[in-house]
């Protein structure tokens, strides 16, 4: 401990006194870590964006979809089938919900526009983890007046929790007065309104003929396809419904492979930059040894052990590595909103504003590691010096 504390004092003295040498040593590390952190942070954000978008659209890992044939009596039966499946998988950590997609005219503040309409029955958020950004998701809607949730895209038109909106489903249908109880981020760029299917069906009993319907089923990983098929077929049969075979939705492998391949390529280049930095420390460390013979021999004569000489030299190079890496991380942080979208254009603007802390930690650790490895050989050579030579100089 004492050795380490003194090593820090000596290292700071040396770094302070040899500014040019320190700057030259640090420069290569700065560039290497800057490249590494920029790529890593952008790739991390791209991965998150891909994963997040897939989760919002297609549900949690191990989510299956069963498309149902439209029909006039569809809503009640489909909600029953979804409820039946949900009851069977709930104990295994699963969930099932009915999701019906269509369109509607939305009236708000005297203006009318077209929106996507999603009628829902069952615990949809347990399958598709939509982010509730305001208000709440209506777990058990009561009453005849629909309570609706709008997505962020719809909220951008000024709709807030507590507002009243009108929904017209079908060309000649009456306007359904609704109250907004929540706003969700569903990853969609089009305005969308989520409405409980049973309430919508009370107002528009034939809605099942106009909307596409599917049951989303999330079951824990490991459930075989035939097991899911048997489960779904039984429930559909009991409800008198016909549907497609279950199709698994959550296959991210294609998109993730593309991001990861690009990330690996960039990281390889960045890693080479870092390797160059490490070689820079090694080179400058070895080149500086002859001019440090007197200093190191004096320290040995004053009682420094070989080990403490190694600790002093390594502390210097690790400090330089850490300082250079910190500078690089600061640079990467400042440039992140621009560079992240240059490298991975698929990153949404919101993600490009959030610099990942892990990348900063990785960058500083990489800089310190480069310092550690680059400083090792000069330190070992310094420790092996013939200290008696100073007496004969």
């Amino acid at each position: 401990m004492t050795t380490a504390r003194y090593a820090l004092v000596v290292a700071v003295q040396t770094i302070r006194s040899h500014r040019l040498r320190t700057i030259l040593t640090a420069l290569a590390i700065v560039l290497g870590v800057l490249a590494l952190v920029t790529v890593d942070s952008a790739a991390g954000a791209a991965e998150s964006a891909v994963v997040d978008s897939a989760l919002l659209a297609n549900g949690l890992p191990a989510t299956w979809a069963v498309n149902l044939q439209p029909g006039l009596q569809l809503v009640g039966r489909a909600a029953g089938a979804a409820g039946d499946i949900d009851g069977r998988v709930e104990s295994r950590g699963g969930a099932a919900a009915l999701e019906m997609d269509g369109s509607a005219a939305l009236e708000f503040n005297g203006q009318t526009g077209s929106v996507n309409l999603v009628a829902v029955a069952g615990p949809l958020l347990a399958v598709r983890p939509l982010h509730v950004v305001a208000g709440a998701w209506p777990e058990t809607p009561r009453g005849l007046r629909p309570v609706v949730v709008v997505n962020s895209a719809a909220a951008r038109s000024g709709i807030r929790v507590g507002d009243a909106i009108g929904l017209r489903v079908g060309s000649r249908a009456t306007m359904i007065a609704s109250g907004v109880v929540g706003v969700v981020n569903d990853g969609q760029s089009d305005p969308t309104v989520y409405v409980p299917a049973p309430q919508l069906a009370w107002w528009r009993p034939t809605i099942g003929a106009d909307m596409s319907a599917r049951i989303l089923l999330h079951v824990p990983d490991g459930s075989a396809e035939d097991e899911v098929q048997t489960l779904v077929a039984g429930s559909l049969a009991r409800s008198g419904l016909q549907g497609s075979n279950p199709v698994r939705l959550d296959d991210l492998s294609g998109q993730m492979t593309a991001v990861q391949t690009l990330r690996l390529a960039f990281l390889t280049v960045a890693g080479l930059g870092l390797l160059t930095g490490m070689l820079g420390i090694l080179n400058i460390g070895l080149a500086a040894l002859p001019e440090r013979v007197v200093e190191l021999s004096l320290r040995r004569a004053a009682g420094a052990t070989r080990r403490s000489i190694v600790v002093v030299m390594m502390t210097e190079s690790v400090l330089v590595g850490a300082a250079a890496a910190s500078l690089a991380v600061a640079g990467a942080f400042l440039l992140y909103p621009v560079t992240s979208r240059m490298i991975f254009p698929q990153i949404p603007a919101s993600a490009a504003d959030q610099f990942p802390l892990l990348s900063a930690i990785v960058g500083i650790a990489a800089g310190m590691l480069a310092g550690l490895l680059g400083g090792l050989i000069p330190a070992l050579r310094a420790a092996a010096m013939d200290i008696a030579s100073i007496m004969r100089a």
Partner: protein
Amino acid sequence: MLRLLDGRLSFRLPNGAELAVLRGASIEVAEGECVAVLGRSGVGKSTLLSVLGLLEPLDSGALSVDGTDTAGLDDGPASRLRGEAFGFVFQRSFLLGHLTAAENVEIPLLHQDRYMRSGERRRHVRGVLERVGIAHRSRHTPSMLSGGEQQLVAIARALVRRPRYLLADEPTGDLDPETGERTVRLLADLARDEHHGVVMVTHDVELSRLFARRVLLRDGRLSELTE
């Protein structure tokens, strides 16, 4: 007591031949005693100091420092003993150009087992610089000091850990005669006042007379000079 008994040390020359520098050298130095080592250039005086100061291991013979046998000591214990027991003054001051006089004197304090806070170190360094009469130059770098002042700083550096023995290798070699004499008198005064043992290598016979005891290194052996 610093005791070397029958010390032998050889070097292998680039042409493969063996050069025996110490051939059974023996000497005892008590704390507070001043010993001048005389001898021709190249006879091995600096090597003798390296051996006494644990900078160079013996081929054979025995070296003990205050009763501690140094034979077979690993680098750690040997370095710790060297730091505690010895202070070195070289012909050139070997001050580090990028450090101030005070920081140069502080160097040995940064290689001891006991941790001293920076304030304590600064006060201690200041005291030693005052002891050798150069405190007013403590914040100057070596390039701003004269040769004599640099050597005073080097002596302060050697004294800063209160060693029991000072090993001085021709400390006046780069100084004018007057400054050289002042430096040697300072070493003798320190030995008397602070009870350091001093071993000083020199080929200046006149300066050696300032020390109570003189030995001659010839043919790898030491002999007392009475005249």
